[in-house]
């Protein structure tokens, strides 16, 4: 009958599908064994990249192959000119994007991307940040991408305030987003440090963050991510400062003090009284610096009784 499409029956369909699968499997195993052979023979060349690429495109979670690729690239560093390498790495980035579309949450793929960016002669970090924006637009909760973003930010030295604004925009489009809140908690101590505490945040900023998260709590009290952040804001450890342990050695002429909370002597003070009279001592932490620490050491000049 004209005008009517003839459609394959389900048996025909299944048969065709099976044949297709068998064909694909054959290709896949052939490529896999070829790649291993070549690696054994030490033939780390562009052909090997080609073969592993075909497999990884189908299955980006095959981490051994990502490692083979890394080996190959490192090997090619000796053989190729910088311009040639740049081109090769550029191609690798395009290839990685294809793989990320197959599985945007593949550890191996994102890790390999960091490797490529670190080894490329002229990495384009701005483009990577754009890529992160795009992936986070498709799925704002892809923590693999958030991780990679932090890597990019670290390498290209993006200002913390820009990143902070980015998290704000992500949160306002969907506040149910652990990654974004978490990132905020990491950025705040950099942006608004509190001089009296290690990784502390200025009190007025805590207040405004509190107001922000409150909006979320009132909008949806059942959403966990708000409460997590809320807890983090509140639980910024108002633990009492006490001395856990103090050790005084006359032989070594040494005083060791362990506190329950990290302090910074210089901002806070720690005095030693000997027979009710104050002794001048200089404190350093266990690393010999004056950064926040729970352990402080002094080598006083006085002699034990």
């Amino acid at each position, binding site marked *: 009958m*004209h005008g009517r*499409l003839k*459609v394959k029956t389900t048996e025909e369909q299944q048969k065709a599908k099976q044949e297709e699968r068998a064909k694909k499997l054959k290709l896949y195993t052939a490529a896999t064994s070829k790649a291993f052979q070549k690696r054994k023979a030490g033939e780390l060349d562009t052909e090997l990249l080609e073969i592993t690429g075909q497999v990884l495109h189908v299955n980006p979670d095959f981490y051994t192959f990502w490692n083979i690729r890394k080996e190959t690239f490192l090997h090619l560093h000796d053989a190729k000119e910088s311009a040639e390498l740049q081109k090769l790495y550029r191609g690798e980035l395009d290839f990685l994007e294809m793989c990320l579309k197959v599985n945007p949450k593949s550890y191996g793929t994102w890790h390999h991307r960091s490797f490529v960016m670190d080894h490329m002669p002229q990495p384009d970090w701005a*483009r990577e940040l754009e890529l992160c924006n795009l992936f986070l637009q498709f799925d704002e909760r892809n923590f693999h991408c958030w991780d990679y973003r932090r890597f990019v930010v670290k390498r290209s030295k993006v200002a913390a305030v820009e990143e902070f604004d980015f998290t704000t925009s992500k949160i306002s489009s969907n506040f149910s987003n652990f990654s974004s809140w978490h990132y905020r908690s990491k950025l705040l101590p950099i942006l608004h440090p509190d001089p009296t505490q290690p990784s502390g945040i200025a009190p007025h900023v805590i207040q405004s963050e509190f107001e922000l998260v409150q909006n979320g709590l009132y*909008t949806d009290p059942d959403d966990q991510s708000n409460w997590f952040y809320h807890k983090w804001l509140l639980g910024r450890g108002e633990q009492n400062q006490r001395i856990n342990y103090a050790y005084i050695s006359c032989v070594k002429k040494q005083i060791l003090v362990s506190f329950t909370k990290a302090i910074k002597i210089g901002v806070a003070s720690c005095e030693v009284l000997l027979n009710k009279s104050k002794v001048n001592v200089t404190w350093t932490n266990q690393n010999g610096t004056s950064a926040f620490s729970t352990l402080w050491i002094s080598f006083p000049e006085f002699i034990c009784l």
Partner: protein
Amino acid sequence: MASDLPDEFDVIVLGTGLPETLLAAAFSRIGLTVLHLDRNDYYSGSWASFSLRQIPGWIEGQKKAQCYASEVNEEKLSSLLKEGERALQLPETFHTVFEAQSKYHVGERPKEEKAIPDSSPSTDESAKPDSTDTSLPPATASESGDSKIPELSGPSPTGDAETSTGIVPGQFDSAPEEEEDSKTEKREGEATGPAGEASGGKVEPAAGEQKQQREWFFEDIEKEWRKFSFDLTPKLLYCAGSMVELLIVSDVAKYCEFRTVSRVLTLRDNNLERVPCSRADVFSSKALSLLEKRLLMKFLTFAAEYDKQPDEYKGFEDKPFVEFLASKKLSPKIQYFILHAIAMATESTSTKEGLENTQKFLRSLGRYGNTAFLFPLYGSGELPQGFCRLSAVFGGIYVLTLSVSHLLVNDENKCTGVITSAGQRISCKYLIADPSYLPKDFYKVPQESRISRGIFVTDSSILSGEGEDLSLLQLPHEGQPQSPSTTVLELPPSAMVSPRHLYVVHMTRRAVSDISSDLEPAVSALFDATTPDAAESDKVKDTRKPRVLWSLHFQHRDLSAVSRSEQLPSNVFVVTGPGVELDTDRCVEEAKTIFKEICPKEEFLPKPPHPDDIIYVDTEEVPAAANDKGEWAKDANTAESSEIGDNAGGQTVEKLEDGVKKDGGEEEKDGREQGGEGVKTEADGGDLKSIEEQSKEEKKKSHGADCQAES
């Protein structure tokens, strides 16, 4: 030419409006032979979208309201009749559109203006404000006329417009923008010459829009006539509604593109506000207090599943929704938001209906981002065309500018066939028709009513925001709770219905009196009525209302509630016309019901087979099998193979879903641009689209050829 069409079809469909096309597609899809006719030379009938230059022709056509010019005389007619048949003549005229009137609200570009693009930018800045003050063409000059565009339509639609007015298009395109931008800066009183120039290079369409107060002239608008697409019947799609489901299941989604309605607005105390509808909106809304946020969310959570908690609204079922909202101790602001923007109800709506509407709205949220509605890019007229295309892919035959002059009815009051306006007898088993094709006693109209429609081209958004928003606004008429509200739909350039910087605003209201007074309250509330002179001197730019540059008004006969009458032959089905409602889901249900009645055992528009699963029949075999229909069959077959071959079948649904997921046109565009560089699927999608676009055009052309063959 009469012999060009086969003499027999399973189903003949009259009219290419949405319900008809759904049915035509559904019948072709299960293998019935379908002949789909439209008396117009365009698709979609009352659901069509037109470019700027098509409007005058359409207005003229509606005045004549001629259905067909019959070539059939008595003698010929009797020769075509079979025994026991009688011929029923169909109406020769039918009025669906009244008082149609289009008007330009801008003047022609004055002479001295035309010289400006040639001079240097620095003199422009100083020259422009002067010239705008002195040389403003009186807007009234263009308002004197009636439906026909007065003097202004002088330039004939052959493209003379550009040349006769002496504008060099290329120069003009780029120059005024830079000029405008620096002008804007100047107005703000902070930019000096160089700064103005520096920022003048790149115009951000969205940001520029807010402040820019460009002077528009007739030529600017007329020049871009192709870029306008005016919907006679603008419709939205509920993201989780039955139309979206149908588009996905039937694969018609691959013929269309969509954009989200990015904001729902309300007008309270002369103040336009964005309504927080979703979680994200409520979270980031500054208009609501913390307590209001909780109350609103609590109510919305309840309304999303109200049917599971009947105790909550016990006793209120038939009482007005307003009373129910008041009983929930919601603040007046939230009550207003829910009533008008979310439930889109009036003060007389019952609680049950209000809750139903709210639920439908809420269920549609979140599917394609932060919105409950989609709008088809290039206009609502794309939807019927998409289904026509599906029908054609499965062998449906389309002829435009062909109608039916007589129905053939036998003793049992069954329709056996039709006589086309070209005088050919075609037999059919079923006939589907838009009421405007049928005699008046074939259908019942419960209550004669009209829909008042206004279409406006404006120079800015009614509420400027960060990006290009597509806005929906329900405007109740204060102090008249029983009076129908006006639905306002503002489409930005990214909806692909207008050129850059221009907005298209649709107003729809159930008619109360005449066209101008029906829409007057909404027009005066939203648009700037002052003359350009006064607007120019208005220093407070933020509160500036958009100015109307072009408008079209008409009233449409409401045939959305027609039902069949006893006189209607049992195998003839009458479908409804467009109504005032916002969405198209009613059409889907209607088409399904009629389809089930005719083919109770068949599935309504099932998913087409995957292209890989289609076995192509050799073209040589076909004529042998189909005898006299050979030629048509071949045509249909080639259409199938080319189209299905081009499209990657199953993937396309995902494509739609990915594509629309993003909120707002701005982002979407970004995504696509980046797609070109980085992410490949997006780029693939683009290519696919362009191929589709191409084949679509070819399709249209081939239809055109069909029509020519007919006439």
